C-alpha cells in the first residue's frame, strides 16, 4: 500500500450531529445520513476548520488509532465527500429540471372562497389577502359544471399516475357541501371508468358539521383536517365569528362527534401559531389527549411584517423550545413503538429517512395545483384566483410554458442565499406563499426563519439518529 499523504485536506459540506452517544453526518446536498465510528469521528474532529494532510492527521492521532484505521477513515470520508482536497472547489450540484410533462397527483379544489368565520390572521380574508374574495371577479361558490371540469382536468393531467388525490379547500368547504358531494360521486365514477383510484380529503373549521354530513364523510372515507387552534382561550383569540364571538363552544362538541363516528380515515388538527398562542405542548395535549385527534400539525401564521399576530424573534425561540420538548415526547413514544400524533416531526423524519433532497420546497406548480372557484388553475390553493400566479385553467389545461418558466425561476439553484445552508435539502427556501406575503415575491427564500429551520432540522436529525440506533424497526414504516 503506497500512501499519498501529502495532500492538504479540508472538510466539505455536511452537518454533524450527535445522537445515541455517537456522531452522525447529514451530507449536503445528497441528504445521506452516515454514522461514524470512533476513528472516523476523531479524523473529522481533528481536521475541524483546519487544512491538514492525511500524514498530519495520522501523526496527531498516533497512540489513539492505528494509521491504517485513520487512513481508511480518511479515504471513506473522501469517498462520501465529507472531506476533500483543500482549496479545490466542490462542483455545484447541477440544475436538474423535473421531467415534463410532470403528472398531477394532487388537485386542491377551492369550492368556495366564502367563510362563516372571520379569523383575524386569515390569508384569504385578512390584511394579507392576495385575491379580493369579497368583491373580486371570482364567483363566491364553485358551480357543479366547473367542479366536473376540474375532475376531468385532474384525470387528464395525472397521466400515468394510478391514484390521484382530490382535496377540497375554501373558504369554508362545507358552505358548498352539495357541490362537494356531487363532485366526489362524479370523480369516483369517472376515475373508475379510466381504471384509476381517487382519494378525497377536505379542510374545515368544523362549525358546520352535522350528523348527516359526518355520516357522509365517514361512509365516503373522506380524510378530514380540522383547522383549530387549541383550548378555548386560544381558539377564541382569532377563530371568531363575524360578530367577534369565539367559535370553540360550537366547534368542540362537533369535533368530538366527528371523531367518534368517523373512523375510516385518521383525522388531523391543523394549528396556526400566533404571537400569543405558542403553548405547543398544552395545545397538543388538549387536541390529541383530550379531544382525540390522531395527529396534530403546527404552523406559524403566514403574515407580513408587523401584524399584531406576527411571531417575533423571541416568539420563534420559545416556539422552538416547545417543539423540541414535544419532539422528545415523540421520541419516547417511538422508542416504545407507541403512536404519537406530533405530525411535524413525523413528516420530517420520513423525509430524512428517505434522503429527500429537494429542488423545490413543495409540489406546488409541479405535482400539486390549486383550482379557484371559476376554474383558474394556480400554483396551489393559497394562490387560487390570483392572476399573477395562474398556470392555466381547468377548461384549457396547464399552460406548460408558464409552468416551465415558474420551475426555472424557482429552482433551488436560483436561490443564492440558500447555497451555503446545510438545511437546504429539506427546506429548499420554504413556502412560496409565505415568501410572497413577506417579501412580495415567490422567488426568494424565507430568510426570516432560517435559524429556526436549521435548529428544528437539527432536532429532527437527532430524533432520527436515536431511532436508527435504538429502534430501527420503527423507521421501517417509511420504507
Amino acid at each position, binding site marked *: *500500500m*503506497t*500512501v*499519498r*499523504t501529502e*495532500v492538504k*485536506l479540508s472538510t466539505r459540506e455536511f452537518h454533524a450531529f450527535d445522537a445515541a452517544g455517537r456522531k*452522525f*453526518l447529514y*451530507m449536503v446536498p*445528497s*441528504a*445521506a*445520513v*452516515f*454514522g*461514524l*465510528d470512533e*476513528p*472516523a469521528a476523531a479524523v473529522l474532529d481533528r481536521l475541524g476548520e483546519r487544512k491538514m494532510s*492525511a500524514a498530519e492527521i495520522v501523526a496527531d492521532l498516533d497512540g489513539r488509532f492505528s494509521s491504517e*484505521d485513520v*487512513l*481508511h*477513515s*480518511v*479515504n*471513506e*470520508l*473522501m*469517498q*462520501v*465527500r465529507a472531506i476533500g*482536497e483543500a482549496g479545490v*472547489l466542490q462542483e*455545484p450540484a447541477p440544475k436538474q429540471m423535473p421531467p415534463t410533462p410532470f403528472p398531477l397527483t394532487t388537485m386542491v379544489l377551492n369550492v368556495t372562497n366564502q367563510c362563516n368565520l372571520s379569523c383575524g390572521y386569515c390569508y384569504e380574508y385578512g390584511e394579507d389577502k392576495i385575491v379580493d374574495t369579497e368583491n373580486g371577479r371570482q364567483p363566491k361558490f364553485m358551480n357543479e359544471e366547473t367542479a366536473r371540469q376540474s375532475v376531468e382536468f385532474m384525470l387528464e393531467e395525472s397521466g400515468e399516475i394510478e391514484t390521484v388525490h382530490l382535496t377540497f379547500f375554501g373558504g369554508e368547504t362545507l358552505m358548498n357541501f352539495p357541490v362537494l358531494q356531487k363532485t366526489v360521486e362524479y370523480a369516483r365514477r369517472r376515475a373508475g371508468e379510466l381504471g384509476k383510484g381517487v382519494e378525497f380529503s377536505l379542510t374545515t373549521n368544523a362549525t358546520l358539521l352535522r350528523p348527516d354530513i359526518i355520516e357522509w364523510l365517514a361512509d365516503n372515507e373522506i380524510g378530514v383536517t380540522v383547522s383549530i387552534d387549541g383550548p378555548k382561550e386560544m381558539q377564541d383569540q382569532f377563530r371568531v365569528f363575524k360578530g367577534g364571538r369565539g367559535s370553540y363552544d360550537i366547534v368542540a362538541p362537533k369535533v368530538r362527534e366527528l371523531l367518534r363516528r368517523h373512523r375510516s380515515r385518521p383525522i388531523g388538527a391543523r394549528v396556526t401559531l400566533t404571537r400569543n398562542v405558542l403553548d405547543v405542548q398544552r395545545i397538543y395535549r388538549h387536541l390529541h389527549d383530550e379531544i382525540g385527534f390522531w395527529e396534530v400539525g403546527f404552523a406559524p401564521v403566514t403574515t407580513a411584517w408587523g401584524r399584531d399576530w406576527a411571531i417575533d424573534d423571541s416568539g420563534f425561540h420559545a416556539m422552538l423550545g416547545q417543539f423540541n420538548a414535544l419532539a422528545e415526547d415523540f421520541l419516547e413514544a417511538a422508542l416504545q413503538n407507541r403512536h404519537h400524533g406530533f405530525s411535524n416531526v413525523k413528516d420530517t423524519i420520513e423525509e*430524512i*429517512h*428517505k*434522503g429527500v*433532497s429537494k429542488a423545490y420546497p413543495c409540489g406546488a406548480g409541479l405535482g400539486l395545483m390549486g383550482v379557484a372557484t371559476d376554474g383558474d388553475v394556480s400554483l396551489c390553493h393559497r394562490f387560487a384566483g390570483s392572476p399573477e400566479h395562474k398556470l392555466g385553467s381547468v377548461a384549457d389545461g396547464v399552460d406548460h410554458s408558464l409552468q416551465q418558466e415558474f420551475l426555472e425561476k424557482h429552482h433551488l439553484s436560483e436561490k*443564492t442565499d440558500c*447555497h*451555503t445552508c446545510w438545511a437546504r435539502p429539506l427546506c429548499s427556501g420554504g413556502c412560496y406563499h409565505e415568501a410572497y406575503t413577506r417579501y412580495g415575491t415567490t422567488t426568494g427564500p424565507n430568510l426570516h426563519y432560517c435559524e429556526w429551520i436549521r435548529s428544528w432540522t437539527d432536532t429532527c436529525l437527532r430524533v*432520527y*439518529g436515536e431511532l*436508527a440506533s435504538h429502534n430501527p424497526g420503527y423507521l421501517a414504516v417509511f*420504507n
Partner: protein
Amino acid sequence: MRHLQPINQKASRIERYLEHDVVALSGQPVGYQAPQQPEGPHIPLGCSLVFSPGWEVDRTGGTAGLCQPVERDLFDCHLGCFWPAHVPDQLNKAPDWTAKCAAAQKDWRKLDLIFP
C-alpha cells in the same frame, strides 16, 4: 465501508454506488495508490492558458472559447486586481452589486450591469 455506516436510504444508495463505481465517483482516493493514473491538471482545449487580466482571449482572438466567462474578470477587478476595468463602486453607489453572487464560478450571470 468500515468506518462509516449508512443510516438512511440515500446513504445506502451511495454505499452501493461506491462499491460498484468508486473510481468514477472520487477520482483518486488519498492514502492509497490510486487504481488509475493520477489526474493531471485540467486544460480546456482552445482556451487561453494565461489567466492574467487583459490576456484572456482564445486562440481565435475572441472570448467565446474561454473556459471562464469574461465577467469573472470583471468580478475580480474589485477584489484587488490591477486591471482598471470599470466596475461598480461598491463602497458608495452599489454596495449590493455582488449580493446575489456568492460564488463567481457559478453565479456570475447574476452580476448585473449598473447604470449611473
